[in-house]
């Protein structure tokens, strides 16, 4: 083949530009620490990167949801435990009142305390968490019980508040008032007397009458309510456990997915630098050789 000067120059230029392209590619990789910058660099890596980023963003949101669910459940759990304590105190007093040794003055004292407990109970039923009534179902802006223990609002089982803690994995975070305060009922109408408070009213009436037999009869009702409270409490406990498990799993997922993400798109720095050095050497060599090849012509030797 006949080699002409322009061929030499053109070839050298195109080779230099190819070589410089590769240098720039590795330089970009080192600077951004990413294997690719555009989808066309590697479509598969790009679409996987997109998917993993979305997954990570989702997991982060689920983690926030779990945290928020946990604080809801925590406040619910403490409140129910307080309710149980109140109930236990009421039971102790009732058992004490029914033992047949109490004077009318004692009975009056006990009644006064029971009345206080009732008021406390109603207060607990209207507990708020960051301004929201926790037992009022969806009507978080409305109190559950009035001072007599009547439901101020209609509450039903449908008003469970769900948080999403995983794809297709929802958890109900609230305890609906009718469940706790009306003996596990599925729904109550506005104005209904709460069964739990009703038990208090019966007790107060019995104490007022001074009839120990009647007081003793209320103990069974109190036990039923305590049982109901414990049932709700254990359900809340079970959900809290599930939240904890989910939280752990989400933490694991987060680590796994970020690891996958990094594996997918992050560049091996050592490798990239090595490639860069290598390409830089090639480029330098090509420059040096080019300079030597292009310079001399016959002109240099004739004159």
């Amino acid at each position: 083949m006949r080699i002409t000067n322009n061929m030499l120059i053109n070839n050298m230029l195109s080779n230099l530009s190819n070589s410089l392209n590769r240098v720039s590619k590795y330089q970009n990789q080192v600077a951004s620490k990413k294997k690719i910058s555009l989808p066309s660099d590697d479509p598969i890596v790009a679409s996987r990167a997109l998917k993993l980023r979305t997954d990570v963003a989702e997991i982060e949101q689920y983690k926030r949801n779990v945290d928020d669910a946990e604080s809801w459940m925590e406040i619910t759990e403490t409140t129910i435990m307080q309710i149980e304590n109140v109930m236990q105190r009421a039971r102790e007093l009732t058992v004490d009142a029914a033992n047949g040794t109490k004077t009318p003055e004692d009975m009056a004292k006990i009644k006064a305390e029971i009345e206080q407990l009732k008021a406390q109970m109603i207060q607990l039923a209207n507990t708020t968490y960051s301004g929201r009534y926790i037992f009022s179902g969806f009507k978080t802006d409305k109190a559950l019980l009035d001072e007599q223990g009547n439901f101020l609002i209609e509450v039903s089982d449908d008003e469970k508040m769900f948080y999403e803690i995983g794809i297709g994995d929802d958890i109900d975070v609230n305890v609906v008032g009718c469940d706790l305060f009306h003996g596990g009922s599925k729904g109550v109408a506005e104005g209904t007397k709460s069964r739990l408070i009703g038990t208090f009213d019966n007790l107060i009436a019995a104490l007022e009458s001074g009839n120990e037999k009647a007081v003793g009869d209320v103990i069974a009702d109190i036990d039923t309510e305590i049982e109901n409270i414990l049932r709700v409490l254990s359900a809340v406990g079970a959900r809290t456990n599930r939240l904890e498990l989910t939280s752990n799993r989400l933490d694991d997922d987060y680590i796994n997915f970020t690891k996958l993400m990094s594996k997918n798109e992050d560049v091996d720095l050592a490798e990239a630098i090595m490639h860069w050095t290598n390409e830089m050497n090639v480029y330098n060599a090509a420059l040096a050789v080019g300079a030597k090849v292009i310079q001399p012509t016959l002109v240099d030797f004739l004159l």
Partner: protein
Amino acid sequence: MSTGFSGLTTAVTGMHNNQKALEVTGHNISNLNTKGYTRQQAILATANSRYIVNNWVELGSKVQEIRQIRNSFLDGIYRREANALGYWEARYNGISELESILGEPMTDGLQSILNEFWNAWQELAKSPESLTVRALVRQRAEALVYHLNHIGYQIDKLQEDINNEIIKGIEKVNSITKQIAELNVLIAKAIAANNNPNDYYDQRNLLVDQLSDLIKVEVYEHPDGYMDILVGGYYLVSKTSHTNLVAVQNAPLSHFVVPVIEDLGVEIDPGMGRIKGLMEARGMVSGAKGSYDNGTPNTTCDVTFAVDLSSASSGYLADLQNSIEKYVSELKSNGLEYNLRLVTFNAGTVSNIDFGNNTDDFISAVKSLNISGGGALDFGTVVSNVAGTGPFAEGANRYLVVFSAEALSTTGNLDDYISTLTKNNIQVSVIGTDAGWNSVVKATGGSVYNITADDYSSLMSKVGTDTAADVNKRIATVEESMNIISNVKKMLNAMVNIVLREVNRLHMSGYTLDGKPGGALFETIDPSRPLEMGNIKLSDSLLDLNSIVASSTDANGDNVIAMKIAKLRNESIMASYNQTLSVDSYYQQIILTVGNIGNESRQYVESQQVLVNAAENERQSLMGVSLDEEMGNLIKYKYAYNSATKIVNVINEMLETIIYRTGIVGR
């Protein structure tokens, strides 16, 4: 035996011709870096000897011709490869621009904005009454709208720019063909005068090289020096005349252009080359606003209800009448553009009424239907009634819902009716019994609903949601083609349209914080077009944060709707062909497609560049100027010239001897 003076002439021709050859060498060297220059060679030959008086007399040398060293076969190869390179470069540039507009996956593109949008709804689901979170939802929705409109604007701008490049390309073709025609005149004149217009040849060949980058040309060279240029079978240059290409809009109201032969008005196929690549990168589609080809989602549906009024349907007509609103309200809540038509049929009569989008009239018309008895009517009559009436919008999605308790009956060939239906893109669904209808329904992609259903209101809702789902499927199913930007735009708009309409549907199904029924969250800027990139705004009512819908009831803590909207991202609301996908997967597919097109074009550009370089090398190896060679020639001709002068000297001395030294008769 030569005579003295002829030797002198021979030597002079040597001097003269070698001097000429030196000039050619000089011309070569001075054009070393001239683009398109072909090296020339002085071909020296012996001058014709003469036979004089029984003797051959040599008359020295002559310059036979000054030849260009060029091979038109190699030119052909170079031009073919350069043509393909131009094509792939144009495609690659288009897709690269698109990639940077989308900004995926390493920078904050649409995906991360969507993520934030969905997450805002998750937050709202956790505290539906919080105004802070509501402000967050609005701000994220605003960001989404801004981003979508911005992408839309940039993509439109990109198409515009490419379109302008096509126009410039066409102008460049015209300027080149004009110059070629002018050179044709000069070359033909020179040849007629027996000159060798080598440098004109070079200029003309360079022009053809440049033309090949733009468009696929066929080149014919006539022996008398003319060169004809053909594109797509039409002459752009024929001898001394040239025909312009003009950029003509490709559809009414479209500013997208195609190359058309001036005066003839014929659109030509540029074959390959930069112009073709640009056209495909832009999309060979109508650029008119709202063109479905160029990405506007087709949310129109043209629904015909065909109600059988024969006595067999008598038990069910009332059910249909009671629940027809359900169907219509599904179309409405899905945000579709609709056109309703009612066809009734029983023995002997068919009525056909078009209600347009007047739902009230349609519903009351259905409600006032009475059974008129008689047997079943031929299905073929219904088909011809439906297929015969004009669709309300160009290319509307068409549906036929047959309500009949009777078996399918036809007098003609059922296959003919089916092919009429499929040809007109009409999907048939039947509220009836299985009898016979299955074949029609299967062939057109519809379904059979049980006419004896107990819960008619949910049955009619189902028919409605199925229609809406099918419209969505038709929107999201984007056929593969060579068009780049228009196709990607189609997919993006399909996603945007379907997602925003779904969000709107859910949003409208709930209640605001102050207990009012929810309105649409996203609205169109230009109501004549559907929701698409560049045509989205947040509803003005959203200025009041209370009007963001989180609840399915008027209770403040109700988070049902917020939850549903947050969960949309993982619902299979996108259907492409027969594959159902979530929004995220659909978007990832778009990015994968973009990446694949970009990757493919880049590889083609790289390999094509290698081929062009090889062809150019091949050519340069023949036609290029080699300095070494020219220096060699310089020496060669210089010595030849020197030697010829020496011969003159020698002859001179000989003559001197003869004239001055021999004989002294005269002295």
